[in-house]
């Protein structure tokens, strides 16, 4: 349970990060909070030759509203965003999700962008970014590009990030004042990854429903429904008709059941949601 040897680069600027990534590519990994990476290294699932520690890069520690998105820099800890007094008003869905992400000591160190970079399809923030139709800003020494969540996540733990690219920030679009949100999750132990998690956005009769944990990437569906019965029917049909992952932690039958029960619970929550002015 000890990491293989590596060289630690403790950098002070984004320019240093990009230079090192340009030089080492796949042989290097970024470490921010390290709450997933350190166990991965300890179990030697990965053993990169170089780690680039970005914790001292001040310019990455910013977050806030930028135009119509909540922009979160890659140095921002989950607990910082969780404790932000405007989060309820700005991104209620993320506010609902944070208590479900691991435990407080993990959120104190883990970063928002780290969770996105890891791309676990059961992770709450991955679900949040996908269902809000957010984006990821990738920079390399040569260029900068902004990728939509649906194009960024390619599979379980797989993203479109190139080996010389660095996640500078993620953007969570801010929905209109009429938007209502719901979130529900089931895991075997509080703080564990979700077996199934559901996030719902209701804007009038237009619904967006996202499921985490049922496939290699988050599944996002949109539909028009005029009543809670109609949206419940939509979720029932979805749970019956789509392919659902089966693995040693849960059968596809259990996952279908959870899609229905958690899905309806999240929709009800959205219907009851009180908009904070």
């Amino acid at each position, binding site marked *: *349970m*000890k*990491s*293989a*040897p*590596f*060289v*630690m680069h*403790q950098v002070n600027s984004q320019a240093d990060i990009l230079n090192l990534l340009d030089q080492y590519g796949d042989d290097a990994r970024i*470490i921010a909070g*390290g*709450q997933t990476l*350190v*166990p991965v*290294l*300890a*179990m030697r699932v990965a053993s990169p030759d170089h*780690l680039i*520690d970005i*914790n001292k890069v001040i310019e990455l520690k910013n977050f806030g509203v930028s135009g119509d998105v909540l922009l979160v820099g890659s140095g921002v800890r989950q*607990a910082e965003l969780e404790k932000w007094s405007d989060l309820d008003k700005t991104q209620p869905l993320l506010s609902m999700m944070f*208590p479900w992400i*691991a*435990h*407080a*000591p*993990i959120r*104190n*160190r883990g970063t928002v962008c780290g969770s996105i970079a890891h791309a676990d399809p059961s992770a709450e923030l991955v679900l949040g970014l996908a269902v809000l139709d957010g984006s990821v800003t990738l920079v390399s020494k040569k260029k900068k590009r902004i990728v939509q969540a649906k194009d960024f996540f390619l599979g379980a733990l797989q993203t479109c990030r190139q080996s010389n690219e660095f996640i500078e920030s993620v953007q969570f679009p801010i929905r209109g004042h009429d938007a209502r949100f719901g979130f529900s999750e089931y895991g075997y132990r*509080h*703080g564990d990854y979700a077996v199934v998690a559901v996030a719902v956005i209701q804007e009038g009769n237009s619904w967006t429903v996202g499921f985490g944990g049922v496939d290699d990437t988050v599944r996002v569906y949109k539909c028009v429904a005029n009543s809670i019965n109609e949206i419940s029917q939509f979720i029932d049909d979805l749970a019956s008709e789509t392919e659902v992952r089966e693995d040693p932690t849960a059968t596809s039958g259990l996952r279908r059941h959870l899609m229905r029960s958690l899905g309806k619970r999240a929709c009800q929550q959205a219907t009851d949601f009180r908009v904070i002015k």
Partner: protein
Amino acid sequence: MKNHLVTLSLNGVEREAACESRTTLLDFIRHDLGLTGTHAGCEHGVCGACTVEFDGEVVRSCLMFACQANGASVNTVEGIAKSGEMSDLQSAFKKYHALQCGFCTAGFLMSAKDLLNKNPNPTELEVREGLSGNLCRCTGYVGIVEAVLEVASARAYKNGREHA
């Protein structure tokens, strides 16, 4: 190769030692600085036995590297009772049989201390939520929760009397 020289404040005392890049903060505290109160349990962030206070926030010391702690302020279970006498929290753990083998206790004490600092008057549910990142495999959690709740009410009573 021990190519990092790490200087940090450990329970208020400045300490310095050399370590490898891959040395976790946990191993550094135990092996290089010689304070073995912080325990190595699962070493991948699940059990909470290695919980320490890092620059004012509780973190898993197994999930960060010692070289990342250069210049930081770290408090461990040894810092809870500096006078050599048990703190109120430690005494309550003893009173309520909140430990059996004691392996998880250092982590629980650090989490409970942080919980009470941030929320001096928690409900039972809030205590359970606040300690949910720590695992105990001997006693269950009833005694631990009772101990924390008693400390909260004893401190509230004491503060009330002082302000009366």
